[in-house]
């Protein structure tokens, strides 16, 4: 009988990726020569938990690799090896490889075995170099040589004799009660003895913890005697195999320090009652055994696997449970001098986006209901009407607060995006032979998760550009009287209803003359045209435009700035550039805080209401028949500030019967998108309001010219115009 572990895979991957991010961050902060102990511990913990998790889930390649890594990290932790630059590079590469392996396993694709084994070889080489050199041994090192590391990691799952032994509890119990004292005396120097009471909560397994693994690890620290308390075990018919009903009393004899023992239980700490107590070496073992009163013992150290453990649990369940009282274990707890460790919840919880969206929907509905009630309230007369209206006003305030709070739930600090840059800057700087300091500020600025996900790539591109084109090599900088270290600065802050993200550097800045020369050479600008600075800056956002003299693998292919601008515009934002030759350049991206809400202008066409996003509206006007003309029967244009703009009749576009087809009887909304302007012909303008964007695609599908829908105050649905889409379609037709 096996437990279906796949249900925990998602959580494992998610947590592992997060853990790798924190490991990477810690590695980057690590000072060569004088490493911070806490950082090394963080790094070690990540490797340790990924190893444990992947072994539990049977991802043996990952487990094997992380084991080698862990061995190396353990050397660092015990300070028997020093952190060097090659070492930190190696560790960073290990992070990459682990991430790649996890991704591959997650996507159920084969792991790049060559890359893994190469790196694993390097890791073991480094460990071996240490082992070869005479080093003072500090603290217990479970695996001192690469050979041992390999042997440990490749430990094949073999059937263990333990389950069979477990089937006869009474016999084993008597056998082991004599054993610890004897074997401790015979094979080991008499060290300190620890009594550990480990009483996991039922959900222990669900958190990916494997008691067997922990005990095996403990067994590495010294001689271990394990006793299982099966008193909490329900009858087999009621047994839920994915829950842990067992408790253990462990006795460890050896040189282990308390921290080392606690380390073993580190990941189970929140899921169990743990008590660790030191016992004088002199006190007789039998006394403790008697108080523990555990009916069943499994001796660890023998190779066995998770299935064997499950078997053991089952066979224990089928064996008659001896009539020992559960209180004995409790007494043992009370007697020992340790403290019960239970780690409380951290400050955050993981919630799926779906749940939040559901919450937002419900709140949206509430707002509509509340608006309806408010309207009713104004019509009511009588003695209680005033009270009712006061109550409704209160309700409205509370609703608004509720809505804002729910919106805020979707907001995440921008540090989720910024955190990838230290590594990227470090790698790029090394590759390009530049010295660069990355400054991050405003990391706690919050913005909507959807915006956050989409702003990453444009920012990466801007930062790469800054490093490749902006920051000069140290020699050039020295010659220009600048500090050898170039600075790239990422900043985020709130500005009104928007968020501004800045990427600035103190590099060479943009060379206006070169841009202009290049543009002239390519015929983008006439030879005698005079351009303002802004117009020249605009040029770099053109597709295919690059002034880099040679293309590197970092940048210069001319693909990019136009994509950056398009991405930013898709998010409803804009990008600006300020630059000064020799002093550096600064890109400022301004984005809306959220994609869930848009400022809209409601327009009426026939009986339908549509929302035009305010950001794309230039102005609205009434046409005189004198400034409308038809172009060779193909379409209508009107003059607008010296330009002729095409007219798109919304009633034709959406197939609605309008109030009027006469252009001068309706209104024209001048809208802008994709760098072009058009006039949208509508019957009337209704009003401006913030609307919550809902997806049409969730239940229906994409509709051309419509970016989404929203729910109006009366509960009806209005479609939101996709102005760039409409213009794109119109210009496609114009070309055709």
């Amino acid at each position, binding site marked *: 009988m096996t437990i279906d572990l796949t249900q925990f895979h998602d959580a494992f991957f998610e947590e592992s990726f997060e853990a790798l991010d924190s490991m990477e961050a810690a590695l980057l902060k690590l000072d060569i020569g004088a490493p911070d102990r806490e950082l090394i511990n963080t790094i070690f913990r990540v490797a340790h938990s990924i190893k444990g998790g992947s072994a539990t889930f049977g991802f043996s390649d990952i487990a094997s690799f992380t084991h080698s890594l862990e061995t190396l990290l353990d050397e660092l932790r015990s300070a028997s090896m020093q952190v060097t630059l090659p070492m930190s590079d190696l560790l960073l590469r290990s992070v990459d490889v682990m991430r790649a392996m996890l991704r591959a396993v997650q996507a159920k694709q084969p792991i790049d075995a060559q890359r893994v084994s190469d790196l694993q070889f390097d890791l073991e080489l480094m460990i071996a170099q240490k082992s070869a050199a005479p080093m003072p041994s500090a603290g217990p090192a479970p695996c001192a040589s690469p050979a041992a590391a390999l042997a440990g990691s490749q430990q094949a799952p073999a059937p263990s004799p333990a389950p069979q032994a477990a089937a006869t509890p009474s016999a084993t119990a008597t056998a082991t009660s004599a054993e610890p004292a004897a074997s401790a005396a015979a094979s080991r120097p008499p060290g300190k003895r620890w009594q550990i009471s480990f009483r996991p909560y039922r959900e222990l397994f669900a958190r990916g913890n494997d008691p067997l693994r922990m005990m095996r690890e403990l067994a590495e620290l010294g001689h271990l005697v394990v006793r299982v308390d099966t008193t909490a075990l329900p009858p087999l018919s009621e047994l839920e195999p994915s829950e842990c009903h067992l408790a253990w009393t462990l006795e460890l004899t050896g040189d282990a320090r308390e921290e080392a023992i606690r380390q073993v239980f580190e990941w189970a700490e929140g899921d169990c009652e743990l008590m660790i107590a030191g016992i004088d070496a002199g006190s007789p073992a039998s006394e403790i055994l008697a108080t523990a009163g555990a009916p069943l013992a499994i001796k660890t150290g023998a190779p066995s696997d998770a299935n064997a453990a499950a078997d053991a649990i089952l066979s224990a369940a089928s064996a008659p449970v001896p009539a020992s009282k559960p209180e004995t274990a409790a007494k043992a707890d009370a007697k020992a001098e340790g403290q019960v460790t239970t780690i409380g919840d951290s400050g955050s919880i993981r919630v799926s986006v779906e749940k939040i969206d559901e919450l937002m929907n419900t709140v949206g509905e509430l707002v509509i209901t509340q608006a309806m009630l408010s309207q009713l309230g104004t019509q009511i007369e009588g003695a209680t009407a005033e009270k009712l209206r006061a109550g409704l006003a209160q309700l409205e305030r509370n609703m608004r607060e509720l809505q804002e709070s729910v919106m805020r739930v979707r907001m995440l600090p921008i540090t989720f995006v910024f955190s990838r840059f230290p590594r990227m800057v470090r790698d790029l700087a090394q590759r390009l032979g530049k010295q660069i300091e990355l400054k991050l500020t405003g990391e706690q600025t919050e913005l909507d998760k959807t915006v956050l996900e989409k702003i990453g790539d444009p920012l990466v591109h801007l930062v790469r550009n800054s490093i490749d084109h902006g920051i000069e090599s140290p020699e050039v900088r020295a010659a220009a009287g600048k500090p050898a270290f170039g600075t790239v600065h990422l900043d985020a802050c709130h500005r009104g209803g928007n968020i501004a993200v800045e990427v600035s550097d103190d590099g060479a800045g943009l060379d206006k003359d070169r841009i202009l020369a290049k543009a002239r050479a390519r015929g983008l600008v006439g030879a005698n045209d005079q351009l303002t600075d802004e117009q020249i800056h605009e040029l770099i956002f053109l597709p295919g435009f690059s002034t880099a003299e040679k293309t590197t693998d970092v940048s210069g292919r001319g693909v990019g700035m136009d994509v950056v601008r398009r991405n930013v515009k898709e998010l409803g934002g804009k990008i600006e550039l300020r630059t000064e030759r020799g002093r550096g350049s600064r890109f400022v991206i301004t984005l809306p805080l959220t994609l869930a809400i848009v400022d809209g202008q409601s327009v009426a066409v026939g009986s339908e209401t549509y929302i035009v996003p305010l950001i794309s509206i230039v102005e609205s006007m009434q046409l005189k028949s004198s400034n409308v003309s038809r172009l060779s029967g193909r379409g209508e244009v009107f003059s607008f500030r010296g330009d002729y703009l095409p007219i798109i009749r919304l009633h034709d576009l959406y197939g609605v019967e309008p109030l009027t087809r006469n252009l001068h009887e309706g209104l024209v909304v001048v809208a802008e998108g994709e760098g072009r302007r058009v006039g949208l012909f509508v019957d009337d303008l209704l009003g401006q309001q913030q609307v919550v964007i809902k997806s049409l695609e969730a239940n229906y599908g994409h509709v051309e010219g419509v970016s989404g829908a929203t729910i109006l105050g009366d509960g009806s649905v209005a479609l939101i115009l996709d102005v760039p889409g409409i213009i794109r379609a119109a210009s496609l*037709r114009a070309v055709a």
Partner: protein
Amino acid sequence: MSTSGSGNGQGRPEQAVAGAGSHQVLTFVLGNETYGVDILRVQEIRGWSAVTKIPHAPAHVLGVLNLRGSIVPIVDLRMRFALERAEYTAITVIIVVSVSSPAGRRDFGVVVDGVSDVVDVNSAEVKPAPDLGSRSATDFIRGLVPVSDRMVVLLDIDRLISGEMSAVSANTLDTTDAALTASAA
């Protein structure tokens, strides 16, 4: 013709039914016919209210409605089944069903003349739809089952609606002909 076991006949619809055992079906009336959908698929039954039209939608997709914050398309089953068109009145009913499609769960509203009853249907009694020549005509019919003295047509709502969706995407390709003739530059 396989004659094994229950004698349900053969073919795909029968297999889908055979696994289900006895289940409950919501029956509704369209014209003179009675149809049934699996009750577990029914999200909600609500009265008719005005819908917002979707541009370029197939004729039987009437538009979208706000269903507790999500936008739900509404399909007129009379038009889908090429029945005579009926007026929408205050007693016209919309049954909101959820279907599973390749793109995940979708909610759809279907306009029917009226909801009749919830009946228990024994899978053994379900007869396969007769072959009417055209496969597509009976594709969304899971089978026929007699309930009291009437014949209830059991709908395979997933097939019905996935047919819808392909119709929608085919339709959007042919979109904006009349509309976007405006072109100057």
